[in-house]
């Protein structure tokens, strides 16, 4: 019983982080039909920005979010305006050119980090890094709690923006049908720039949060990119709720295998890749597709 509770609480905490990570990828894909392979590099850069702020100005990692989010938003908009916009626009499916272009951006970011911060493994140690508290009888690390709180907050803000503001309405409109949105007077190019900025800011935020939990190198972020991709494939792109559900399924699967099976921790990462490939092949519509299918069957 205690073990089951452990698994649920830990999955829940991990899911918050995973959802933040995945949403950055989802918003860019939704608005532009571009798979942002540079996502991994941006998360890595977020971690290093937090690291630099922490070591040079002794700014608390959670406080550094105030700097990281606007900085990365601006960086994302700049990247869109200088590079991404020049691509021929993708149709309903993402183009290979955009994938490879952002792959190039990832390589540049990664190797820039090698030059700036060297290839050594870095980590952020604060006074509370190793402290833990008891939650429902489960020992939970203080950083994990902070990470969950920040993720939940960011997703709530996002949900509010998407559903209560004009900007959010415009983003959703372009995601659903770009041409129809254009005809209704939405400046799709400006929305794309904003969406790219939001996606980049979320990646930077995820990087900051990751840096409080894990050690990192310039090569950091690849397995998290695959996890994020797995989540948006599972959860679909239509809602924040879907992304959160996908994140929870992945986190639960990871925690269940860690607790109840003899799969060694070193093979944990292989699990999400397998889930990714299996989902892509068996369930290309993700969980929403499955729900729709069940719904239709029940009614029919």
């Amino acid at each position, binding site marked *: 019983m205690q073990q089951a509770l452990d698994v649920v609480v830990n999955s829940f905490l991990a899911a918050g982080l995973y959802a933040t990570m995945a949403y950055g990828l989802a918003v860019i894909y939704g608005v532009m039909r571009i798979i942002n392979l540079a996502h991994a590099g941006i998360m890595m850069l977020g971690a290093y920005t937090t690291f630099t702020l922490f070591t040079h100005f002794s700014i608390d990692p959670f406080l550094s979010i105030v700097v990281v989010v606007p900085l990365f938003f601006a960086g994302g908009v700049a990247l869109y305006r200088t590079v991404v916009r020049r691509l021929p626009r993708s149709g309903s499916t993402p183009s290979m050119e955009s994938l490879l272009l952002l*792959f*190039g951006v990832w*390589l*540049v970011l990664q190797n820039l980090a090698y030059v700036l911060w060297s290839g050594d493994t870095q980590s952020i140690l604060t006074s509370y890094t190793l402290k833990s508290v008891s939650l429902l009888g489960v020992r939970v690390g203080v950083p994990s709690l902070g990470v969950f709180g920040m993720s939940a907050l960011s997703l709530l803000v996002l949900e509010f923006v998407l559903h209560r503001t004009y900007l959010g309405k415009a983003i959703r409109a372009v995601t659903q049908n770009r041409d129809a949105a254009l005809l209704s007077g939405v400046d799709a190019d400006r929305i794309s720039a904003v969406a790219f900025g939001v996606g980049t800011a979320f990646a930077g935020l995820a990087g900051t949060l990751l840096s409080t939990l894990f050690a990192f190198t310039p090569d950091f972020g690849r397995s998290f990119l*695959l996890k994020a991709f797995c989540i948006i494939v599972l959860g679909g792109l239509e809602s924040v709720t879907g992304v959160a559900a996908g994140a929870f399924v992945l986190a639960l699967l990871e925690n269940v295998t860690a607790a109840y099976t003899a799969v060694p921790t070193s093979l944990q*990462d292989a699990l999400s890749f397998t889930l990714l490939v299996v989902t892509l092949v068996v369930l290309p519509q993700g969980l929403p597709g499955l729900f729709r299918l069940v719904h239709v069957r029940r009614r029919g």
Partner: protein
Amino acid sequence: MTSKRALEAAGMLAVAGALYFAPSFLERGTLNDLWSVALAVVLASSWNLLGGFAGQVSIGYSAFLGIGAYTTVLLALSGTPPVLTLPLGALLAGGFSVIIGYPTFRLRGPYFTIATIGVGEAVRVVASSLSFAGGASGLRMPAGSYDFESNFRSMTLLAVALVWIALAISRSAFGSALSAVRQDIDAAEALGVNSTRLKVTVHALSAALVGLAGGLFAINFQYVSPGSVFDFRLSLTIVLMPIVGGVGTVAGPVLGAILFGWLQLKLLSIPALLSSSLLIYGALLIAVMLFEPKGLLGLVRRLWARRLRRFYIDA
């Protein structure tokens, strides 16, 4: 047309002959550089069979190099002669490509690409945790199993053979079918092309060739580890060379591989750039995608056409 083909055949034979006798008159350092360029040509051209001709971009090719390399070392440790280890490594790499090909080829375009990153990562993670394969620290070849000259000849001849294979495929009905799949997979299916079988076949061929190169790689370095053969950067490099050179052509990957080999030699002499050499390739990739999607070969052709135009029309 016939004379052009005869000229090509003569050219390839001449290159092959020169490379065969190269060990007797070139220095060891030069031979090492040539070996590296030949490996690059083999990897780039093999990848191009699937990624270029059939348009299926895979970022997981280090898996096949690694399987070839590990098979060679493991069999050599159990006393099997290289005549058997190399083909077996190629066979296993090809077989593995079929196993992962059937599920992943149901995905299209970028989705396939993402799945291949997952496959490559999964293979690396699994290889690092297998105790009989030495885990993360890798395996060493048995002592006294090394002959540089024969390894050099095998690798360079394999490179020439690959150019020939690519040329032959590009002119065959098989090549036309691949090209049809690349341009419009639904139209190709409608015309009776079994696209999945076609993709699996060309994937197996290119994986087997990469596996063969992996075996030679293991013999040359006498050591394999997950970090050396299953490295993600290796998968990246394999993709970058043909794209920068000119994807989907016969000469493009060769051009990209030679440029890559040359840059690598130049960069290795600058210590500051050693760990960040991929920075330049990343920038090259961005430039190619933005300005010349057909790669260096496309650029050369465009400049050449402009020169001809100026010569005939403006003069």
